[in-house]
């Protein structure tokens, strides 16, 4: 007998999209405002000097985390980039990357709604794809909001020099891939692990370790061999300044695909704790 084709559950995609929207909108708004706030500080040379003096009295890894040697008076693009690497912004990205797939997959399993969803015409793979699409689209849209924050700030403040928005666009797209890779790791955890807390815990641990490995590897030359093992290595500013870093983007895309596919295969094959 011909197998009955199950249509894609767009209703679930819409419903889940609506549920994530308030969290996404809040995170997007804060990220947007951070870009404007950073630009408000760095467009004025006097403020920049005060800010850099303040950074010099803090432990050196903080300056490294915010951009390192790129943070110099007069290097306006480098200073604007603080808004892209600020721990608050990274935390907000992490919040969405971890929150979205774990809420949609393990969260629904734990709440009992997944049993109802899967007893309607929606395959497990389709449900996973819905969660993946929303996570990836949400992460890329947040990166776009971050870029739009920079664009808006360049209209609001006079920097005394042209701002290379094409560079920030490349940084945003590449950053979107880094964020997408973080989202894919969360998807993998949500697809493989039972229980929302466990999935959140493992993802946060992996991403935080990755972030600190990147910071320490930059700051301490003896650990520089760790750099290629971190996600942030593939958002190198130097390569982005020269053009599209296709090699780095390829690696990030590969991580996204591999993590998402492995998560999806395990999700499809395992019995959910309904």
């Amino acid at each position, binding site marked *: 007998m011909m197998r009955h084709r199950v*249509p894609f559950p767009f*209703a679930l995609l819409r*419903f889940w999209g609506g549920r994530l929207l308030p969290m996404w909108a809040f995170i997007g708004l804060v990220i947007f405002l951070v870009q404007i706030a950073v630009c408000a500080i760095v467009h004025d040379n006097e403020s920049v000097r005060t800010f850099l003096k303040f950074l010099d009295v803090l432990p050196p890894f903080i300056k490294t985390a915010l951009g390192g040697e790129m943070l110099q008076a007069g290097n306006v693009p480098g200073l604007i980039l603080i808004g892209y690497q600020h721990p608050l912004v990274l935390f907000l990205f992490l919040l969405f990357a971890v929150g979205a797939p774990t809420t949609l997959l393990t969260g629904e399993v734990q709440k009992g709604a997944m049993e*109802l969803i899967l007893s309607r*015409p929606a395959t497990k793979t389709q449900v996973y794809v819905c969660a993946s699409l929303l996570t990836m689209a949400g992460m890329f849209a947040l990166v776009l909001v971050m870029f739009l924050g920079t664009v808006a700030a360049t209209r609001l403040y006079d920097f005394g020099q042209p701002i290379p928005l094409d560079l920030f666009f490349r940084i945003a797209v590449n950053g979107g891939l880094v964020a997408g890779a973080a989202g894919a790791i969360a998807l993998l955890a949500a697809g493989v692990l039972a229980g929302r807390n466990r999935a959140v815990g493992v993802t946060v641990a992996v991403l935080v370790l990755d972030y600190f490995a990147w910071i320490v590897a930059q700051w301490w030359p003896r650990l520089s061999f760790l750099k290629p093992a971190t996600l942030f290595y593939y958002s190198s500013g130097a390569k982005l300044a020269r053009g599209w870093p296709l090699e780095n983007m390829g690696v990030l895309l590969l991580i996204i695909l591999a993590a998402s596919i492995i998560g999806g295969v395990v999700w499809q*094959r395992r019995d959910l704790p*309904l």
Partner: protein
Amino acid sequence: MATLEVRSLTKWYGPVCGIEGVSFALDRGEIFGYLGPNGSGKTTTLRCIMGLIRPDGGQVFALGERVVAGRATQHDRIGYLPGEFRLWPGFRARRSLGVLASLGGGDRAQPRRGQLAERLELNLDRPVGELSKGNRQKAAVIYAFQHQPELLILDEPTSGLDPLVRQTVLDLIREAAREGATVLLSSHDLGEVGAVCGRAAILRAGRLVEMAPISKIVQRSERRLKVWFADGALAPQVPLGQLPGVRVIEQQPGLLHLAYQGACETVLRWVAQFPVDRIATPQTSLEEAFIEYYKTASATAPAAQTDSTPKVDQ
């Protein structure tokens, strides 16, 4: 072709047997009771039928198509009521039920949902989190019935409902069957299974140990005989050694309440020796039959565990 066919279904949870070698088939328009105590494997069977969990062995065919776990086989034609119904608490019942009905293409169930809510007296515009247990169960019934499915898989559908609403739900089940739907009704409530089902299966420790029409399940159990003796006559001592399969339930000066298995001829011959005023044969309920069955099954547990083939009467 059977609407639902389960062949040698087996599911283990690590070293623990969920179900083993469960087989049955349901025809169109049939209401089939699926009985068993907690942990006997009823929910596991239902989840395997729905493809929510992957069986370790056996096959399920629903509406002519082989069920593959996770592939939503024929789910647009199946109504499922899980044992524990948990909707999104922050949303109104109408929205949650609408979203679930929309999966698989447009919400065509809206008019039917309204009718069912009216019949069950449920306000769909209240947030699910504010609904009482009984009202959540009404929402579960609406969820299973709203898209007028051809196959209904119901796990304890009347749990937590008051007797009046329970009757309404049983009426809904009967009406669905009259319109051609096939119903698999899992329940502990033997009264409701007896009231609506034509056949039933009994599950014990994951194995199907009985499958027969309800009337036969009832007949197979002990039968009862109440004898009132004529004025002044004392109830005699029962010679249990001479009357195999007979036991005394109650003995008072003028009354003897007996339980016996098999034909009543021997018991009646013995009773006829005494001055009898009247005799009654109380009907054995399905519940008594079920309890009796489990007593017997427990006593013969080792044998039951090695032989998982049920006694089957069509």
